[in-house]
């Protein structure tokens, strides 16, 4: 199940995000790493060092593209230059699929550069799914949408977040990039059971997973990607792997980035979970690990 049409029939193992502080180490030491995830926008440029580094990485490693500003959920018109440049990058990297977030973040061409949560309505699901289809048709590669962490909810929501996610991906016939840490963060911020979320998504559509660290504040949790993965998230990850089968997994570490070895070592902790499951197992809707 983990290699499916939504991830270009790939199951790549454990990857980490390609980040500037690690460039030198990766290019000179050529460390073992199953794959790298790039933030697409950092390489949607005309020339110079970003593309030179990317080309060198592509000679050695598999690269998967992940975006942060496609804003499938934004209702106003999309910048055609954005998708054009994204397609150019897709041709360069030969990524088997691209991912971006199930969120919105721009209005009338003004960008917040944030991943703002959607109102979970049927109207929003329809409009978002339509845009995902349009982008996929243009890019000619599968798309996975990532659940975001959130700090606010809308009065007008008609669905739970996981029902909304299911509605969107089924209408768009696209995949899910399941961010386990984001589910945990949102569950703490909104007071839902994260296992209800995991059990409520169409597992067969999960094309990739993200794990990361977060920061706890007095009244909420912030998705900071600046810590090792915490125990509750590992437990959820184990459950998600049971549901979905062994799935390409990425450790996100975007702030206070330690050495490549430390990030890679943290990511490799996922291996034991991946190794413990050879195929997805049917899990009862109600979990037993709350």
């Amino acid at each position, binding site marked *: 199940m983990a290699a499916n049409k939504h991830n270009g029939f790939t199951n790549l193992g454990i990857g980490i*995000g390609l980040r*500037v502080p690690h460039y030198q180490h990766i290019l000179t030491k050529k460390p073992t790493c199953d794959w790298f995830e790039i*933030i697409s*926008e*950092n390489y*949607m*440029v*005309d*020339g*110079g*060092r*970003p*593309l*030179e580094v990317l080309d060198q990485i592509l000679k050695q490693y598999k690269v998967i593209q992940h975006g*942060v*500003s*496609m804003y499938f959920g*934004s*209702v*106003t018109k999309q*910048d055609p*230059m954005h998708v054009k440049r994204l397609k150019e990058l897709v041709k360069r990297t030969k990524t088997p699929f691209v991912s971006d*977030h199930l969120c*919105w973040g*721009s*209005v*009338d*061409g*003004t*960008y*917040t*550069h*944030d*991943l*703002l949560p959607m*109102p979970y*309505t049927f*109207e929003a699901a329809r409009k978002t799914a339509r845009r995902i289809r349009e982008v996929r048709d243009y890019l000619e590669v599968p798309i996975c949408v990532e659940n*975001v*962490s959130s*700090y*606010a*909810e*809308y*009065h*007008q*929501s008609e669905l739970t977040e996981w029902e909304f996610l299911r509605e969107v991906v089924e209408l768009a016939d696209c995949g899910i990039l399941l961010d386990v840490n984001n589910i945990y963060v949102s569950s703490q*911020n*909104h*007071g839902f059971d994260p296992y209800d979320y995991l059990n409520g998504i169409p597992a067969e559509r999960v094309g990739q997973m993200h794990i990361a660290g977060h920061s706890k504040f007095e*009244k*909420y949790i*912030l*998705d*900071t*990607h*600046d810590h090792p993965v915490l125990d509750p998230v590992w437990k959820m990850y184990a459950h998600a792997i049971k549901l979905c089968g062994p799935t390409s997994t990425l450790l*996100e570490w*975007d*702030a206070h980035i330690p050495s490549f070895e430390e990030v890679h070592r943290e990511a490799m902790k996922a291996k034991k979970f991946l190794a413990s499951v050879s195929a997805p197992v049917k899990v009862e809707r109600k979990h037993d690990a709350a």
Partner: protein
Amino acid sequence: MMRRESKTLNTKSTKPPPAQRTTKSGEPVRMNLEQTQRLVASLVMRRLTADDEMQRSWVDGRPTAEIAEAVIAPNDRLSSFERIEIYNKQYWFRLRDCFGDDFPGVRAVLGDRKFDAMTEAYLNACPSRSFTLRNLGQFLVGFLETHPELTAPWSELALDMAKFEWAQVQAFDGPGYAPLSAGDLAKISAKGAKARLHLQPYVQLLELRYPLDDFLLALKKKNAAMRGEASNAMEEDEERPKLKGVRRPLRKRVLLAVHRFENSLYYKRLEQEAFDTLVALRDGATLEGALAGAIGKSQAAVRRNRDWLAVIQEWFDIWTRLGWFYSPAAAGQRSKRR
């Protein structure tokens, strides 16, 4: 330099839509997706208070809390206001950090307080119009030209520094094409009066009123400034490291090429005639026309006796070694070297 005369202000984002929580009969008003997003974007992008809090009053004088309650649900720990305030703060923290990364020299010129105030005014007037944060500062030069009061008494210095730092953004990852070799150059110049040379788009030519190349190098030597990267992580409200100061430069006109070589950024000072030649070539003049214009208008008497042939030969020898010229015929192939 990238400039736009047209106003980049998005009136819809600066004039927030009215938020109406209830109808006359007291029923909640149901906003459609577009209305919701416009309202929330207005809340998220609204300026913070001096204490980096969300403003308590909305643009029409009503409590912001009332506006937030119209769209955002509270929970057992946070009010609607507090929940949307998280996004409001993140918006400003993220963009300020990114802007500060791209313009450390302007920050050093203005000092932290003035820089922060200028940043906020700029981002409020020119919110991001690009999918990438790389372009966040694309309107700064034009903005500072029309708002010298924000940078006084260092307006000229700050403006020049903004030009210099935006040129670096462009030179860092702007388009570059397979460079011409010395042999290619010889063939082109053999065409005589009609010969044209094309300057790499990433080569930025600047006339500055201050020696900002030396200033910025001194500043970077004392401080480890880095370019930011896009990511989807939220940021904690961290204190930016203080810039270790360097004395502001005295006025002295310099002509610079900001360029990249083997994908590292460099600044190269140019003499007047060399600068004029490159500007003319960049703007489409023939080689002959560019040189005649540049050398012909040279005023310095001492220069009239120079061996111009040797000087020009040396210029082009260096510029060719730096890969500054390309053939438009090969422009479809992006250089992997530059």
